């Protein structure tokens, strides 16, 4: 356990220090959401309707963009070699890395959601629903995105390739995340069903993600 705690602590600290760029994701989220009204127009009724979808898309893109460095930074400085040689199973090390990433990149998005909800004219209930679905759904984005990040390391390519690989995988999360928030905001569907599915998706990705990422890292040994 000390090994995993040490890894989480290190990743969080590196992200928060100068050059870490932990908060760039949330800044990107803010910018993307602010851009939306310029495209669709400042019609408050329309924005209210589109609000949950805009917030979810913004969060999806923001958490995807920051995933790029998840394994790449460790590959570049040689840390990945030592992680592979440690007595901690690689799967657990992947869980720790994803968790650390979620803490510095996923959680701030949820914290920023209420302010953005205000800009998009969402009422308290709808904003709360979006924040809650993001809380349940962003771990799924991180853990499935981690598979793409591991593949990107294997292929020594990052950036857009990662996006192309991961975006299709995150479609289910997007569907049920937006469905649950829309249900809470406007009805008529119930909030519970899509939300439970969203939680189930998160839990499943919590299991599948680390195994797939670890397998991909091992395959990509070079």
């Amino acid at each position, binding site marked *: 356990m000390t090994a995993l705690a040490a890894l989480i602590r290190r990743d969080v600290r590196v992200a928060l220090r*100068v*050059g870490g*760029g932990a908060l760039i994701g949330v*800044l990107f989220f803010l910018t993307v959401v602010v851009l939306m*009204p*310029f495209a669709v127009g*400042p019609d*408050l009724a329309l924005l209210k309707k589109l609000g949950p979808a805009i917030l979810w898309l913004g969060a999806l893109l923001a958490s995807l963009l920051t995933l790029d460095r998840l394994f790449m930074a460790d590959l570049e400085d040689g840390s990945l070699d030592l992680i592979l040689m440690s007595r901690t199973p690689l799967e657990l090390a992947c869980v720790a890395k994803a968790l650390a990433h979620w803490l510095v990149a996923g959680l701030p998005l949820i914290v920023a959601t209420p302010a953005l909800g*205000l800009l998009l004219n969402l009422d308290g209930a709808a904003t709360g629903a979006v924040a809650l679905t993001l809380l349940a759904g962003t771990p799924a984005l991180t853990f499935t995105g981690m598979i793409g990040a591991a593949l990107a390391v294997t292929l020594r390519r990052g950036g857009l390739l990662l996006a192309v690989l991961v975006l299709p995988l995150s479609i289910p999360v997007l569907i049920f995340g937006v469905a649950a928030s829309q249900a809470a905001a406007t009805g008529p569907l119930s909030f519970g069903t899509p939300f439970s599915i969203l939680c189930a998706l998160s839990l499943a990705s919590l299991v599948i993600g680390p195994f797939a990422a670890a397998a991909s890292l091992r395959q990509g040994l070079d």
Partner: protein
Amino acid sequence: MTLIELANPSRFLALASRVLPWLVAATVIVLAIGLYQSATAPDDYQQGATVKIMFIHVPNAWLSMFVWAVMSVSALGTLVWRHPLADVAQKAAAPIGAAFTFLALVTGSLWGRPMWGTYWEWDARLTSVLILFLMYLGLMALWRAVDDPSRAARAAAVLTLVGAINIPIIKFSVDWWNTLHQGESVFRMGGPTLDRAFLIPLMVMAVGFTLLFVTLHIAAMRNEILRRRIRSLQMLQAGKPRTAA
């Protein structure tokens, strides 16, 4: 004390510690007068007592642009005149400017709630300030992304100047976008018909907040100079072999 003499960071530190107490005193006095005048100002016939929000909103909105102007001059100082304190001034101003811009947004939003019935309206003014806020945050992110201040300085200077040129274009575009979508005109603050009863407290508050910015800016510059001094000392320490002491 000319600008050339100020180029020496040690001189700047000396000057800063001499000037800061006076600046603090001036800021406190002017802000106190401003606050008193704002409290005793009459209600506006249109806005009622909410006009009081204007006394803090307008100075913050003014500063949000003024600070960017200060940063642009500093950016020129970095790129053209190679003034050694220019990038210190620019870096120190960014978080303060962001804070004032944030306050301009929040006070504007709190004024808008009773006036418009909503906290946020995609009004041209507010929206432009929101974009300015995002640009401040981006600039701060740029400073944080690079460990070496001298390397970050040039990139930040270019970004600041590009921002200075772009802000009017953004403002124009947002105005156009806004009028395209919104037929009815929202209440416009300011204009030439502002009553003296409001104008004087507003001016005093604006002067007070500007003094506040200058004080904070000089203090933050002093911190930044010390931070860089520590950095170079630490590099010196790292380069030295261990001493027997």
